[in-house]
């Protein structure tokens, strides 16, 4: 006589109705905005992930994605998918009190809006940040974007109780398809973030700084211009080791992030996580399995061979 055929998830329903009104999820950008939304302007701003009575053990998760032209339709797909992330983390219990922040990365040498950083939110307000992101859509063709600026911001302008009170790193996911510039330029930092670092910071140094406090991953998705390009993957593998992942189906991005966090929090092993996905009817299992197999294997190898001081990892190696 009946069944629970259609999803009853509040986190997707709002988005479905929004799409059904014909209103773009990127309403700010699509209304013609060419400057960073005040809520997402990194200049002079610090972003904090704090514990509260309601969320006593916050776990910060940051997702930054490339919004330049080479990424094609990717940002729009991400915008549709990412609101599910919080629900995934919460429902499966992969992380205590997750607080999620979204942001966008462009090219400081030619873009009007090279860096956009939202707020850590533990509810649907993060959707609103996604809607305020300006999609730059341009980009140079030199196969470089200002990822290093975003890394600088994460290293020096974020504060988390998770780290300060408990010495636990947060999770940083960067989704993109190009190289970073070789160094963080002092002039760009002054102009866009408002700091005065006096001299340029080599990208290697900023990666070391950021990975000390953030368990950092680079996701190279299918459908982007340079996906599958060895040069890009090799570049990020050089900086982040096994944490540079290829993703052959962008629709699986939320599940990949959620399982990565679940693995990091030791809430699950990969097999359990994949079983969870199957049970919830996710179609992403194959992609996630493929993307994370390396990670899972690499982590096990790390236990056997490496002390907890690999250059890409910084602090504690979680298994």
């Amino acid at each position: 006589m009946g069944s629970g055929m259609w999803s009853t998830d509040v986190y997707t329903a709002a988005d479905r109705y929004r799409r059904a009104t014909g209103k773009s999820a990127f309403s700010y950008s699509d209304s013609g905005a060419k400057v960073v939304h005040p809520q997402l302007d990194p200049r002079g701003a610090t972003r904090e992930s704090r514990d509260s009575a309601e969320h006593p053990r916050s776990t910060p998760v940051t997702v930054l994605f490339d919004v330049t032209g080479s990424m094609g339709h990717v940002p729009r797909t991400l915008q549709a998918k990412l609101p599910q992330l919080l629900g995934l983390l919460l429902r499966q219990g992969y992380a205590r009190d997750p607080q999620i922040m979204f942001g966008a990365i462009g090219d400081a040498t030619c873009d009007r809006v090279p860096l956009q950083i939202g707020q850590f939110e533990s509810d649907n307000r993060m959707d609103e940040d996604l809607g305020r992101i300006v999609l730059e859509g341009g980009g140079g063709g030199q196969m470089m974007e200002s990822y290093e600026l975003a890394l600088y911001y994460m290293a020096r302008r974020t504060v988390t109780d998770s780290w300060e009170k408990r010495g636990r790193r947060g999770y940083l996911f960067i989704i993109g398809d190009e190289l970073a510039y070789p160094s963080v330029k002092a002039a760009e930092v002054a102009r866009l973030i408002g700091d005065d670092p006096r001299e340029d910071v080599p990208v290697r140094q900023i990666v070391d700084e950021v990975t000390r406090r953030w368990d950092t991953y680079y996701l190279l998705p299918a459908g982007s211009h340079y996906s599958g390009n060895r040069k890009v993957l090799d570049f990020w593998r050089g900086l982040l080791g096994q944490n540079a992942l290829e993703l052959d189906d962008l629709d699986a991005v939320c599940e990949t992030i959620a399982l990565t966090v679940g693995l990091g929090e030791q809430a699950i092993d990969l097999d359990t996580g994949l079983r969870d996905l199957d049970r919830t009817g996710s179609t992403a299992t194959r992609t996630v399995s493929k993307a994370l197999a390396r990670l899972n294997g690499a982590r096990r190898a790390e236990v056997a061979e490496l002390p907890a001081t690999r250059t890409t990892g910084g602090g504690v190696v979680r298994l």
Partner: protein
Amino acid sequence: MVVDLGYGDAGKGTVVDWLCATRPVHTVVRFNGGAQAAHNVVRPDGRHHTFAQFGAGTFHPGVRTHLSRHVVVDPLALAAEADHLAAVGVPDAFDRLTVDGAALLATPYHRAANRARETARGADRHGSCGQGVGETVAYGLAHPDEAPRVADCRDPEVLRRRLTALRDRLTAELGPLDAPPVADCLPAYRAFAERVAIVDGSWLAGALRAGPCVFEGAQGVLLDEWHGFHPYTTWSTTTFANAETLLAEAGQGGSALRIGVLRTVTTRHGPGPLVTEDPSLPLTDPHNATNPWQGRFRFGHFDAVAHAYALAVAGGVDGLALTHLDLTERDLDLRICRRYDGLDRLLPGPAGDLDRQAALTARLLRARPLYDAGPANWPEMIGEALGAPVLLTSHGPTSAEKHVRKEGHLINAWCRGRAPS
């Protein structure tokens, strides 16, 4: 008006689809149940949709759906269903939907409470679908002035207050519920109110004036809240009663053709009596998989005793639609049960005497079926056994595989008389 004279799954969806395929239907009106309905429609071009809240005529351009106040509305599931409809080539389902503002809202709190209760019943499950429809009705009866309703979605403050009260009451009773915070729910309900036309009870009279309407029942009469086999029932009036009430309010009481849908094998999804159950029947149902809430889909021989009871409970029909005749064309030993051992007839009792219904259930759980061989002419024989003509037969999943029997001129005459001028 289309209702199922069994335990559901007889093919209301395919009959409603056929009605909309063969005449100028203006609106399909839902008058009971909620998002737990699963009315499968397969188009001749192979497209398939399981209708839960949208009317089963939605594949036909221009055919509207109205969710009356007797429906428990779940805007979250509705959004997912509209998404799937768009994926199978129906992008404008929301544009053709009206919802009565007085209808109760099913929420994640009802759903979580429903699951918590059903899980606690262990082996004594009632066969709930786990969608919280019964929980919503129960709360609506206990707190009629505070139960969240569709119209509240237009007023976030009222809705916030009502959702909070609902969550707090259910949590106090059952402990922590696996459901999102109230603040997270509000944007989805607000978006629903912005997208969907919320109307009042007077809307239906206009629709009835504008053209023929089909009233699509959900579930089956043998699951009726008052006349079904308690406690294996649904919190819903599954007979024609709600539809007749709506018609009477619109000044058209008693004017609609009453169609009862039956399947050549009697089926049930979930626990409870199924006297003619025969696990040796080599049948499966493509749309009813085994699930954690209802278990396995059950098949039995045609139970004329139970269906005659349903017919009496429903107050009679103008005609029957008989589906799955293609099964009788296969080499299966399908039989018909006209009486049980020591029991020839089941008599309807007064509405609401649940002790009596529970006693009847106990009796049925012990009853043994007596069989006659399956006949050469199933529609003829079933028409005789139940004392109502079979108007329409169905030999496959699509509307193209329906045959109007000679008695079926009734349907067409009725429709011609109601076509808009």
